[in-house]
């Protein structure tokens, strides 16, 4: 009979965190910024069919970085949660805050109880009627929630993207064209290589739309916006 090894809880958590961070850093970055009519999402994503940004509810969008299968199951769970809540109560009762809390609980539990933590980072955005009602949340692999303002980046070299955005970000809220240019430049600066439009996934939460506010922007449209 072999004796089980003793591993201190501190060591265990540290190992798990390191493992998760490594997995997330391997991927590519996603950035979301507030622009005049809502929130713009830009992801460095070479696939045109496997999306990293998606709609959760009328005015809520989701984006996941890290291991695809893991954030995909979180995305689906989020849609189920939102649709169920909207069906039971009312459409306006579905909020990003409650979703972010749910994700935080789930990721926190998985991180502390499972052998393998989720290698994901989640970004949630919600827009309201007014620009000041915009909410941006970043949820880390261990369930930490961070409420962000103006812009947020996850996955890959997220820190580099954020500092690139901070370096050039003037105070006022940009229009769509400026916001997109800024995001693209930040992604390029962080990875120090040029990104083609085809390798860019762009989507919006646009408060000027009626009903569902989420919209994907195809590469051609992004091209005309940037030119």
């Amino acid at each position: 009979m072999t004796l089980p090894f003793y591993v201190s809880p501190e060591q265990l958590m540290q190992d798990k965190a390191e493992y998760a961070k490594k997995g997330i850093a391997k991927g590519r970055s996603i950035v979301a910024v507030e622009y005049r009519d809502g929130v713009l999402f830009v992801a460095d994503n070479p696939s045109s069919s496997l999306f990293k940004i998606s709609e959760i509810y009328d005015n809520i969008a989701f984006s996941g970085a890290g291991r695809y299968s893991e954030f995909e199951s979180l995305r689906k769970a989020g849609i189920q949660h939102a649709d169920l809540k909207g069906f039971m109560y009312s459409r306006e009762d579905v909020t990003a805050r409650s979703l972010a809390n749910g994700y935080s609980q789930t990721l926190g539990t998985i991180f502390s109880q499972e052998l393998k933590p989720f290698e994901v980072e989640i970004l949630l955005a919600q827009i309201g009627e007014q620009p000041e009602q915009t909410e941006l949340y970043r949820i880390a692999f261990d369930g930490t929630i961070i409420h962000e303002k103006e812009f947020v980046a996850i996955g890959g070299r997220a820190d580099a993207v954020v500092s690139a955005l901070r370096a050039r970000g003037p105070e006022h809220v940009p229009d769509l064209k400026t916001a997109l240019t800024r995001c693209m430049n930040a992604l390029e600066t962080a990875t120090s290589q040029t990104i083609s439009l085809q390798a860019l996934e762009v989507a919006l939460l646009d408060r000027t739309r009626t009903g569902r506010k989420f919209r994907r922007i195809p590469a051609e449209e992004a091209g005309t916006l940037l030119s």
Partner: protein
Amino acid sequence: MKNILSQMPVNQCSSFFDFIHQTRPELTPAARWGSEGHVSASVDEIQRHVLSQLAHGTTVLAVKYATGVVIVGDRRAIEGYQVASRRMEKVFKTDSHSAIAIAGAAGPCMEMAKLFGIELEHYEKLDGLPLSCEGKANRLGQMVKANLPMVIQGLVVIPLFVGFDLKQREGRIFKYDVTGGKYEETEYHAVGSGGKDARVTIKERFHKNLSQPEAITLGLQAILSAAEEDLGTGGPDAFRGIYPTIKIVDAQGVRDVEESDVASQCDQLAQSRPGRES
């Protein structure tokens, strides 16, 4: 509310209807009468009484024209011989290119329309692509079928589904029977208590290649004659300013015909009505 997010892994099916069946069965329409859907004979009398007091919705119809479909519904709901509501909406947009109109017991009707709308949106969000027109029509058929235990209790829900098929580039109309049977109509259809009168009116004037305004007029004429013959169908109510709901479903999507336009159309129809006394 239980945290759905913690139920990992989520079930892999893209249907909201199946999802609530599995996780929250008390929220499904079938939960109204228990899953078996039978009530003992002694309750039968009471039940019949209760049913006669339930609000019912009445005439809804759809007419195809050259590039799409118009879908029209009256606004009246009745409880026995009384008017329960003069402003009920019976035509609902269910997604960008489809709409549903429902006749039958008001409560379950509204519930089915709402559930069907969420079902389509849920699928679109989970799978990233909207269902095909045929797919939507089939799904609705399964939901009508699941409603069968309630039909036996007297709570009939008969939907009329209209969609624009983006592949075939044409508007399509589907009707259903209570067992969930789905039948495609190639020209027009009307359901509800005044459905027969409406169908007769449309039949007399329908032709292929109607224009959109012609189809709208025809739909209104059909609602008018249904309202004249059937107590359960409400005609245009100029006194209160309540007019039938009309939606257009075509390649551009689903949109409402403005109430003011419907009102002026109804005025014109009233002026030109044969046999008008003054």
